[in-house]
């Protein structure tokens, strides 16, 4: 083995290697570029209010993308989070009409825990492919929610003030949702890097057989993981209903595919074993800013979707190029 340190390394290569070692930097640069473009297109838009708004919308996406990040680290994916978030939001809004908010909260989190548990057992014990397992439970969940909706038509819905405050409120111009998000994000980052469970997520995704030989019980890790993912999704649902304030049967569904995109853009490998949550958060911000950018462009909806798709693809490809070139 030898390094090519003899001749001076060209500047381009050095920049590339620098970015490859710190994969967050290119992401942050991209985010800044997008914001600058936005500011050029509509001068003055980037102000305190806009930033607060962007953060407000990025947070639910970022939490769901956190679910995606963690499951992707193990080589899985959780497509049921949209349904779970929608269910807990819908149940909260309809139950709080007749129940104590605490009771409503518990009721709202129940399906989350249940779906997480079923996902975990399916993937961890029966070894069902996570894509199939979570698609299946999300189908079941959606069906249940729709049947449930038929039974509560008459009672109506209400958004608890606290959730509205958390979802939409600002304190000194800072979104209240950060009160929930900052500790949550810190917890996820800490879990991934400094706890045994976090280590196991990476290791299981890298080489499951090896973890087994080291005494790791796969089903335990996977079950815990999917329950955590589901609970996070449930919490997101509550936050999101506070933001949108209109309970519906597909509330968080549109966030599912972007949550996968945010995690991928943030550098988490869909094949497992590689990635982290910080990148994901920036990925979520990038997607949110991108959405605003496309709305401003005043182009037909079709053209916007085309651009969105192309940009997601381009960013992921470019990022892979940078990170893999070492």
């Amino acid at each position, binding site marked *: *083995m*030898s*390094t*090519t340190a003899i001749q001076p390394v060209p500047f381009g290569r050095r920049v590339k290697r620098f970015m490859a070692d710190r994969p967050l930097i290119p992401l942050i640069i991209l985010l800044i570029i997008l914001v600058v473009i936005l500011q050029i297109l509509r001068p003055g838009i980037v102000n305190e209010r806009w930033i607060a708004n962007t953060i407000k919308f990025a947070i639910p996406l970022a939490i769901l993308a956190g679910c995606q990040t963690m499951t992707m680290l193990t080589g899985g994916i959780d497509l049921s989070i949209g349904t779970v978030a929608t269910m807990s939001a819908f149940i909260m809004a309809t139950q709080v009409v007749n129940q104590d908010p605490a009771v409503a909260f518990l009721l709202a989190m129940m399906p989350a825990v249940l779906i997480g548990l079923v996902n975990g057992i399916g993937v961890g014990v029966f070894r069902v492919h996570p894509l199939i397992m979570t698609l299946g439970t999300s189908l079941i969940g959606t069906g249940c929610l729709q049947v449930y909706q038929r039974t509560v038509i008459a009672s109506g819905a209400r958004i608890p003030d606290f959730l509205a405050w958390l979802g939409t409120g600002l304190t000194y111009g800072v979104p209240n949702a950060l009160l929930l998000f900052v500790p949550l994000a810190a917890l996820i980052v*800490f879990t991934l890097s*400094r*706890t*045994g*469970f976090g*280590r*196991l997520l*990476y*290791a299981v995704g*890298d*080489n499951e*057989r*090896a*973890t*087994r*030989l*080291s*005494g*790791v*019980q796969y089903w*335990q890790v996977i079950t*815990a993981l999917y329950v955590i993912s589901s609970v996070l999704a449930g919490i997101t649902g509550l936050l999101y209903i506070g933001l949108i304030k209109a309970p519906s049967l597909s509330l968080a569904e549109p966030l599912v595919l972007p949550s996968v995109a945010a995690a991928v853009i943030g550098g988490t490998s869909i094949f497992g*074993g*590689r990635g982290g949550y910080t990148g994901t958060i920036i990925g979520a911000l990038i997607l949110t800013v991108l959405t605003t950018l496309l709305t401003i462009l005043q182009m037909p909806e079709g053209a916007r979707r085309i651009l969105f798709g192309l940009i997601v693809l381009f960013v992921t490809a470019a990022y892979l190029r940078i990170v893999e*070139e*070492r």
Partner: protein
Amino acid sequence: MTSNPLLDATGVAKNYGAVAALRNASLSVLPGEVHALMGANGAGKSTLVKILTGAIPANAGRILIRGEARDIRSPAAARRAGLLPVYQEPSLIPDLDVLSNLRLTSTPVEPFRAWVRELGIPDLDIRDTARDIPLAVLRVLDLARALAVEPDVLLLDEMTAALPANLAEKVLEVVRRQGDSGRAVIFISHRFVEISALCDRATVLRDGETVGVVDIVPGVEEKIVELMLGTRIVKTHVAARSAAQKAVPAPARPRLSVHNLRVGTKLNDVSFDLADGEVAGVVALEGQGQDELFAALAGSIRPSGGTIEVDGQPAKFSHPIDAIRAGLAYVPGDRAEALAMQRSVRENIALPFSAALRNWGPIAMRQERAKVVSAIERLQIDTRAQGEVQRLSGGNQQKVTIARWVAADTRTLLCFDPTRGIDVGTKQEIYKLLREVAGHGKSVLFYTSELEEVQRVCDRVIVIFGGRVVDIFPVEEADEPALMRAAYGLPRGAKADIGILADPHCSSPESASSSASTSPGATP
């Protein structure tokens, strides 16, 4: 042999990022020659084979085939040029049956069948799916598939490493005949016995560079080792263990005691004891139940009968964690099975610390670091590329798989062929380590496919044949011929000719080819 080279490669270089896998490799092969390609682990042998056969592109170099410059961009192009490889890993498509695999590569079926029979597998069903075929047989099929198209140059990358002796022997015969018929074979192996029995010349690689081409003559081994290792320690013989070392006071009860263990149809009735402070060897031909024995002891599969006792207590393992809790840790021969390749050395070593549910919480980073560092030091792991285990060399990866259990202070190691595909120097270190572990009162069960290792490491050797223990030797009697005979299920003391591996010293090409002619099987 003064004819023009069939294949002539010069100045071949290949970089993986900052790592130079090959820097300046050259290789020239004459018609009718069996040419050894030798080098320590990581010297670049496989890389060179892959380049020659179009599996990966080179960064530099010139390749002439029959004197013509050829640019081989894909395995298909190599095949057209008459170069056929058998890579280190099996290349049959796992989900296709053998027949479809042949169709995919446009391999004629009848010659293939003839070669398969020739290579010692009489009852192959070509409608079997590759996935269901044992690894050793797959390797042979790979070879037969290459032979069936009558390649000019056959490239065999550690073809015999995963083969039981009986199959390896057949392969060697066939390879030698390839050479006799005017074709060429490039033969990679870490086994000197095979090289000296088979090859005409050897090209030696070190650190991606060709450092010498030698004729194989008796006694050339020393020279090759010198070339391979360069300034590194030259062939350290493990000193025969002193009597004091061996004198382990027989403990009141064995550490591990296995009675009448059965696993499916593969392992029938195995019993033996393992004492504290002992290294017990296990010797067996491929597929005699040793895999199942280790898997059962490691908690990977459930035995169908018999008992396992640990420290006199009956133990039932339904998951490796149960075995680990009982102090039994399994080190597989294939490091890819044991390591999380994208994770760091530290995380890999510390993996067992987090396994149990109660250790899922915050990690005591400093404590962990101390344990890991001390294990790294004990095994002298080269940690220059410790960020990702996949960037370590093979030998160092192997050390990490052991370091994990040293750090966990495990009482009993179940090592399954831990020196498979590892160079001489690293092997010595692993032998030393195992003795040291035993010296600390721990015990080791050590399966090896290289018989000469038994006398270097073990106190005792357990021979398994057909899923049963056929003999238990004291190490003094466990020389290679004796072990070989026992491994074939022959009674101790019998003298029967069981092939060229029986006696490495009289395996000059002449005597080897005469033994080949007496073997059964028709030339296709």
